[in-house]
């Protein structure tokens, strides 16, 4: 039996994870861990969480068989876990509801969060509106530009969006700025971290709030196919949607788990965000894990067309699954992700988020050579937020007289 009881009591996944933060944050992290453990064991908390996930967010989400996509590719059967159908349009709401309930329980009335693609920011702004909490979202200015729609959605929901001008002006810098806020306002504030990364207990807690994805998908595929899938595929930025869908399948050793990182423009350092392509273990943002870094040990510049995957670190549980060989990690470049998004749109009528399109691309690449196999792809978010990027990259569809050829 592998990894089912990870992390250990000090937050380590094998050698990875842990708690590497300035001393000011150590006691608050201990307090958060204690509150989380108590809430997890409290039937009332669990009932309130389940109720909101069902009636407010829309769980369980369907597992959908992509008949046309499968037939078009002529190989493995492809199922999608439809997290894109959740309220706010991505899996991020699972964790946002969970942590907001926890913050309420801890008496914290001010919520801060970072966001890359804006999906976690929107989910956080949404739950803050729902619970009447003050909400401040840190977002890199580059990401504000490329995910403008989500910036507006957050503001419409009553959140303050703070643009971060430091560094690469993307997710890494937004997390650093959120940590600085937390260090300063720790007595009143809960940091609602949006991915399975950072200092313990975040990687464990965020995974736990998302593991419903894998539990539901596993039950559904057993019913629909009468067996477990051969392969489960998910994109990996920090890694929350991937760990959420992988987790229930970890003990099923015959099920291949595939994480897809952002291959960007090329696999040269600075052109991508694939941490297992040249990254090495290091410490940043509270945890020891794989990280893209310069020869001097500085965080490297990253790039991805998808803001949600454009991040220098991978969550520590993924680092462990990688080293154990329990999950395999690959990458998909910008161009292939854009193509996969179009393919899915035209065969199934589903426009994926650019992040999720990376996972779809991997399925498209593998399926033709694996007839008889069954895949589950985590469709972690919907693509509305990426309309501007799709338009920029597909100018031929944006012309006044454009009529695309059909499949």
């Amino acid at each position: 039996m592998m990894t089912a009881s990870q992390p250990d009591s000090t937050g380590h996944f094998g050698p990875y994870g842990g708690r590497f933060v300035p001393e000011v944050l150590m006691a608050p992290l201990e307090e958060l861990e204690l509150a989380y453990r108590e809430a997890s064991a409290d039937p009332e908390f669990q009932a309130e969480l389940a109720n909101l996930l069902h009636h407010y967010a829309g769980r369980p989400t369907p597992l959908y068989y992509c008949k046309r996509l499968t037939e078009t590719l002529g190989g493995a059967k492809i199922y999608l876990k439809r997290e894109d159908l959740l309220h706010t349009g991505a899996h991020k709401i699972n964790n946002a509801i969970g942590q907001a309930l926890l913050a309420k329980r801890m008496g914290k009335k001010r919520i801060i969060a970072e966001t890359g693609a804006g999906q976690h920011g929107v989910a956080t702004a949404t739950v803050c509106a729902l619970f009447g909490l003050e909400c401040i979202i840190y977002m890199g200015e580059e990401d504000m530009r490329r995910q403008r729609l989500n910036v507006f959605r957050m503001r419409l929901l009553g959140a303050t969006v703070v643009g971060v001008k430091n560094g690469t002006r993307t997710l890494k810098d937004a997390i650093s700025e959120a940590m600085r806020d937390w260090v300063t306002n720790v007595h009143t504030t809960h940091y609602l971290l949006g991915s399975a990364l950072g200092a313990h207990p975040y990687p464990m807690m965020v995974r736990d709030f998302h593991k419903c994805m894998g539990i539901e998908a596993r039950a559904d595929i057993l019913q629909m196919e009468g067996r477990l899938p051969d392969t489960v595929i998910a994109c990996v930025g920090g890694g929350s949607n991937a760990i959420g869908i992988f987790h229930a399948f970890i003990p099923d050793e015959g099920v291949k788990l595939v994480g897809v990182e952002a291959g960007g423009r090329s696999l040269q350092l600075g052109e991508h965000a694939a941490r297992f392509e040249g990254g090495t273990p290091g410490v940043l943002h509270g945890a020891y894990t794989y990280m893209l870094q310069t020869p001097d040990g500085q965080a490297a510049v990253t790039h991805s067309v998808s803001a949600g995957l454009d991040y220098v670190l991978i969550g520590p549980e993924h680092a462990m699954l990688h080293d154990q060989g329990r999950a395999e990690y690959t990458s998909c470049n910008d161009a292939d992700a854009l193509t996969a998004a179009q393919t899915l749109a035209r065969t199934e009528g589903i426009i994926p988020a650019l992040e999720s399109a990376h996972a779809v691309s991997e399925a498209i690449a593998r399926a033709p050579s694996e007839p008889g196999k069954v895949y589950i792809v985590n469709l972690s978010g919907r693509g509305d937020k990426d309309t501007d990027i799709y338009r920029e990259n597909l100018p031929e569809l944006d012309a006044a007289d454009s009529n695309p050829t059909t499949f």
Partner: protein
Amino acid sequence: MPQTRIQQLFERTQKDGRAALIAYLTAGDPTPEKTPEIAATLIRAGVDLIELGVPFSDPVADGPVIQRASARAIDAGTNLPKVLEIAKQIRSHSEVPLLLFTYLNPALHYGLEKLAADAKAAGIDGVLLTDLSVEEAAAFMQPLRNVGLDTVFLAAPTSTERRLKLVSEYSTGFVYLVSRTGVTGERVALSETLGELIAKVRAVTTLPLAAGFGISTPEQAAAVAKMADGVVVGSAIVRQIEQDLNGLEPMVRALAEGMKR
């Protein structure tokens, strides 16, 4: 192990009935060539201990002033080998105690065993790893201790009694008190809770205590000097370097004045 320069310093200042003035510098700001010269100015003006900050791409515990300094230093080509080179140059002219102040990642990337040996050889006396908690510290600090470097840890207003005990056990040389929750940077008013923190830490250790974060004016420094064994000034000095290097010596002299009790 023989006494380090840090331990000798606090023995001396305690005997003299004054506090030690500790200056933080981002090494390599504005350039690696300038730092030894700036250090010489600080020593001349009365600084007792220099914290040499290793610039990091993502200084999560630092406010805007030190963030800017870190970016300038990195742009000027500063890395850990260059910081050790800077230390060596300072050491060739002075016996001032030097504390290497760094986020963990550059040190890890360099290799802790190698860093311990090279830092010792460069004349560095101790190391403070900003984002190394005592829980994680055991494996990381042993190589530093083995070569006789002091290991300094942070105590914060949020630290529980259990944590303060651990911080004191793990620290040698002195304990660094974070005088307020927040990032580094100048503040108008001194933290009201510093006295309380000093009392809590004194109850669990006999090590000297130095307080930093948010101390910038001579008045604030003098007030802290009455309570603590050392007073750390960082952002105010880094800002002075950023704005007007010529003003550094008088500025630091005014701070040093306040160390007498």
